[in-house]
């Protein structure tokens, strides 16, 4: 036990991790942990879920936005006529038939950079968010299931990572690399953005592990890891999925910040780098708005779409929340 007030109260509400915005749904989930055996029942009501899913406006709108941009990211690069970083003499040209989103100071095609940047954002989101989710689950399950010294150590680690400016770590590691790749950025974000997720999972696991079905499994001599994988995780699968979506969005936003600071990839195009370049090369003062508006809009659309999708999904999973 960590001696946190949350452990003292059976309801497990206070002290639970919450992130503002979409992440907050988690808490509510935590308050009403899925009943034992909900997993199988979920299957039987799968049809019902789909019924509500296609009728949930938020889910449909959010998913559509994300899908449109995903398609752009996947197939856009096949459409572009100019490599994203190729110089040309058409410098800072406004949007035209030839250059749909105009060109940069060096005559690079903004549309081309944009679709490649979208690709980078999705990559960062999937890899960075995915890695963070995996670490968050490992840490959260371990701390919540075993408790005691494991919990104390992992909680300490989580707390430290919450306090230390990750920027400092990025600076040190980045300085040792002659080139920083997109993959490096994704892994770095994955390794540093899991703490809140770990805390949330820890709290969930904590309340689940005292449940009967977990006790039964333990009595029947199942291994701990198996219990976590078979009994605990499936009981919060929808929860874990929602968390991944949030980590995905978070990773995209964090990457944009790093890129903007000039700490992003050195050998790729990304939406954050486009903004960084636009500022460095005076797009604001030269009225080259087409250079910095699209990348920001792209990020808002992807992340906003994901968040809306998240709320929609939450309503689908949780009948009480469905709009009346």
């Amino acid at each position, binding site marked *: 036990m960590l001696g946190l007030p949350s452990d003292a109260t059976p309801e497990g509400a206070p002290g639970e991790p919450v992130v503002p915005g979409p992440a907050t749904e988690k808490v509510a989930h935590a308050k009403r942990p899925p009943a034992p055996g909900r997993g199988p029942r979920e299957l039987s009501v799968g049809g019902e879920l789909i019924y509500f899913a296609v009728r949930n406006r938020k889910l449909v709108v959010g998913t559509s936005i994300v899908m449109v941009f995903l398609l752009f990211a996947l197939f856009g690069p096949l459409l572009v006529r100019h490599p994203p970083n190729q110089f040309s003499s058409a410098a800072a040209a406004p949007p035209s038939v030839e250059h749909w989103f105009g060109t940069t100071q060096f005559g690079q095609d903004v549309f081309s950079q944009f679709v490649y940047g979208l690709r980078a954002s999705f990559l960062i989101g999937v890899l960075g968010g995915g890695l963070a989710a995996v670490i968050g689950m490992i840490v959260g399950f371990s701390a919540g299931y075993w408790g005691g010294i494991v919990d104390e150590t992992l909680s300490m680690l989580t707390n430290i990572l919450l306090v230390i400016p990750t920027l400092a770590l990025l600076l040190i590691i980045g300085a040792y690399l002659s080139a920083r790749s997109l993959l490096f950025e994704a892994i770095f974000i994955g390794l540093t953005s899991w703490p809140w997720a770990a805390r949330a999972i820890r709290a969930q696991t904590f309340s689940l592990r005292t449940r009967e079905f977990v006790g039964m499994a333990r009595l029947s001599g199942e291994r701990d890891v198996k219990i976590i994988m078979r009994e605990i995780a499936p009981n919060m699968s929808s929860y874990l999925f929602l968390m991944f979506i949030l980590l995905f969005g978070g990773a995209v936003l964090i990457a944009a910040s790093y890129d903007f*600071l*000039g700490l992003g990839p050195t050998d790729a195009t990304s939406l954050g780098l486009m903004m960084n370049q636009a500022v460095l090369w005076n797009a604001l003062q030269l009225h080259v708005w087409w250079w910095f508006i699209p990348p920001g809009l792209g990020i*808002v659309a992807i992340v906003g779409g994901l968040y809306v999708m998240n709320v929609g999904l939450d309503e689908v999973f949780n009948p009480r929340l469905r709009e009346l």
Partner: protein
Amino acid sequence: MRRYFGRKLLTYLLTFVLAVTIDWVIPRLMPGNPIKGLLAKFSLQPGGYDAIYNVYSRAFGFDLPWWKQYLNFWDALVHGNLGISIYSYPLPVRTIIAHSVLYSLALLLPAILLSWYAGNKVGALAARRKILDNTVLPIGYTLTATPYMWLALLLAFLLASEAHWLPISGGYSYSLQPSFTWQFIWSLLAHWFLPFLTLFLVGFGGWAIGMRNVIIYELEADYSHYLQALGAPQRLIRRYAFRNALLPQITGLALQLGVIVGGAVVTEIAFSYPGLGYLILQAIQNQDYFLLQGIFLFIIIGVLVANFLIDIAYVLVDPRTRVGMQGAQ
């Protein structure tokens, strides 16, 4: 109560020591020699190089063994000494940071508190009220999904660059010197407004959405339905729901501090607002790792203190924890 805070304090202390140690390592881990970097800007003739190098090496204490440097670091820290800046040599890091800290606080405190307050209010109002919800929800999601620097660029572009309503950069007009005059204070406020607005808007969106979602859970909770069945007025039910929903929002604040500080960094940079974030960029660009180390130390302390205050606020707000702790005593 004492045991609870004792445990908490111990956690904070351990975190602090570890964080400071990592912080101390930063400039020493960076590849390249900071003094060589400094001297590269000088136009030197061959021959005198070693002499100058030694003078600076001594000035920064690099001639000592590393464990002594580490102990000296703690000793200096206890005395409030954060070392010397290498780029702005020989200015003490403390002096440079002292200016910037106030700008950052003046930006962060009102932005965090106001966005939290307003976000919670609006979010609570919007929950389960169709028309309001239909506006608050999309606006909130858009705002919270907006990268800080993009909103900053947008505001700077529209309100400063194109419309010329507000200044785009600096902490106050370059034509003024800090003084107790209305002219200066007005200038201070005008330069503060856009970075504040950026932080406020993004934060507002997040808190409003958060509160809206949590309060819906509360309104659908058994106790709410029970109260409703008993015929309690809607206002009363909502008030209970709001109070319960506040708790996760408080913990959320603690977890979000890092993200908000990160947002302040890029916002300050976008507006060249002379806070710690802007200083970080300067320090990165000038390879001033001693300054960077000082700034990070400050941020670490700030986040720890804020976490602690939030912990206390939590205990004060939540009656259950108070009961729980009394029981434990």
